């Protein structure tokens, strides 16, 4: 409740909140809002020579190179991209947090092993992993989300590890130990909250990159498979049209940017609100 109130007080957070809610509502209500079916390659959706149509007319935001309505595709694409952006990125941050915390807290052989594994994953070209998984697994939305999570947790783990190491050295952790607090209590009640800013930053900042990574994977054949739209693959499918049909690149680009920005604004606000040490400071 306090969080909501605090959030609503900040104009930028409010703006972010409105956009995010709007996007989510539009994604859920896509079938009701969309003027056309997102997969319908309409006969009059292309010019006689086969060029996509610019925004205006019956197609609000124009059509793509197959004559599909861009607006409808963006609406349905929001479903895919939100799942990717939130779930995949969320899982990545969660894995990173888990491994980073455990490795940073435990030390010793287990911690070392975990960190060496992280190093190994970091040295491993992520794209290659994705491609191989692409060929081995049957691409679907959830597989894609999993692949992204598997590829993206590494940096989070690394940073969380460093931070945890620093936190463990701090006096209040020793104070907790002197009170008799168990490992779980220390990890959950005292270390985790301190990692929230990092988690929030990576969680929100990562949304845009994750959405684009999904597009790259689509391009490699592991993304969500056509014709299912996602914001990323809408851009990727048409990226070479960026000067002949700029709306195909820049409109979805702007949508990704705006959404990611909104999440970020919320994240920034949340970080401040959740941080009691900022209370009463300038």
């Amino acid at each position, binding site marked *: 409740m306090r969080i909501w109130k605090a959030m609503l007080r900040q104009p930028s957070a409010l703006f972010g909140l409105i956009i995010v809610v709007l996007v989510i509502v539009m994604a859920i209500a896509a079938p009701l809002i969309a003027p056309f079916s997102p997969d319908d390659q309409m006969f009059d959706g292309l010019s006689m020579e086969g060029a996509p149509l610019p925004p205006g007319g019956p197609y609000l935001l124009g059509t793509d190179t197959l004559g599909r309505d861009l607006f409808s595709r963006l609406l349905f694409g929001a479903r895919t991209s939100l799942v990717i952006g939130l779930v995949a990125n969320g899982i990545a941050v969660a894995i990173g947090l888990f491994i980073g915390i455990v490795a940073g807290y435990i030390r010793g052989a287990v911690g070392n092993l975990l960190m*060496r594994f992280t*190093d*190994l994953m*970091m*040295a*491993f*070209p*992520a*794209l*290659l*992993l994705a*491609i*191989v998984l692409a*060929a*081995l697994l049957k691409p679907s939305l959830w597989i894609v989300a999993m692949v992204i999570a598997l590829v993206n947790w*590494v*940096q989070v783990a*690394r940073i969380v590890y*460093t931070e945890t190491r620093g936190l463990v050295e701090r006096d209040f952790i020793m104070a907790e130990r002197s009170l008799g607090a168990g490992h779980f209590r220390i990890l959950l009640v005292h270390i985790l909250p301190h990692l929230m800013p990092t988690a929030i*930053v990576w969680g929100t*900042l990562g949304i*845009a*990159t994750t959405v*684009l990574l999904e*597009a*790259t994977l689509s391009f490699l054949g592991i993304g969500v498979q056509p014709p299912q739209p996602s914001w990323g693959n809408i*851009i*990727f499918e048409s*990226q070479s049209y*960026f*000067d002949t049909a700029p709306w195909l*690149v820049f409109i979805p*680009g702007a949508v*990704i*940017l705006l959404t*990611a*920005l909104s999440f*970020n604004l919320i994240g920034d606000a949340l970080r401040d609100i959740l941080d009691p040490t900022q209370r009463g400071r300038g």
Partner: protein
Amino acid sequence: MTFLILRRFVQAALILLGVAAITFLLLYALPADPAVLIAGRSATPATVAAIRHELGLDQPLILQFFHYVGGILHGDLGRSYTQKTAVLPLLLARLPATLVLMAAGIVVEVTIGITLGTIAAVRRGGLVDRLVMMASFVGVSAPQFVVALLLLYVFAATLGWFPMSGYGTPDHVVLPAMTLGVLGAGWYARMVRSAMIDVLNQDYVRTARAKGLSSSRIVFRHALPNAILPIIAMIGIDIGQFMSGVVVVEAVYGWPGIGQLAWQAIQQVDIPIIMGVTLVSALAIVIGNLLADIIAPFIDPRIRAQ
């Protein structure tokens, strides 16, 4: 210190071996038979079998892996399936270009990132801060291919300030490095900003102000070196991220680096080249991290003491 470095080297070697093993296993798990690809469509099954034998693909996987690792120890990374030539010279011929590009990209990324991040931190909460953070956001969210082409259209094709493609002169580096750097700059700007805000609140910055130093000196001499420490570790981590960006940028700007080689090899399942590129990039990442570890003590004497 020597101990530490020695230990890092052993670790690095183990990591490389691990990367090699995983890549090897993954690649051979792929449902694509190199022999079929090589033999071409006019081939009979007998030809395919003969080629498979020539490549040693009929041996058990573990044996193939030992052969491969044995080869590496002798500086032999195998022969490309499609180019029918040794992989190592291919990599070596292209490596300098990629290194130049990555170095330039990192310089751009770090310079822009640090500059913007510092400005934003100093002007925290103000209009400039907001603008910089917005810009960093655009950088983070922009698809690289589009950025590359945009820069190319504007600065090379239209304005003619830079050559459109190629490699060799400093002029050639500018646009690719910018493309590569713009994206990362957004990340760095954010990180530098928060690190900088943190540092500017430190007691020693207050001390510096009490000495009557100019604000530029306070920011650059006193605050920046402290804020930059976490950034250096980040650069080490970042090299891995860079590798995938390199593929796109090299493709657009006709940059003769290993990114293009990797891309083509992946398209053709040229396993020896993929292995080679993987190892080289893993090596780059490991060295990057090692460098970050080595540079850090030069900036922070406290680390030096340990």
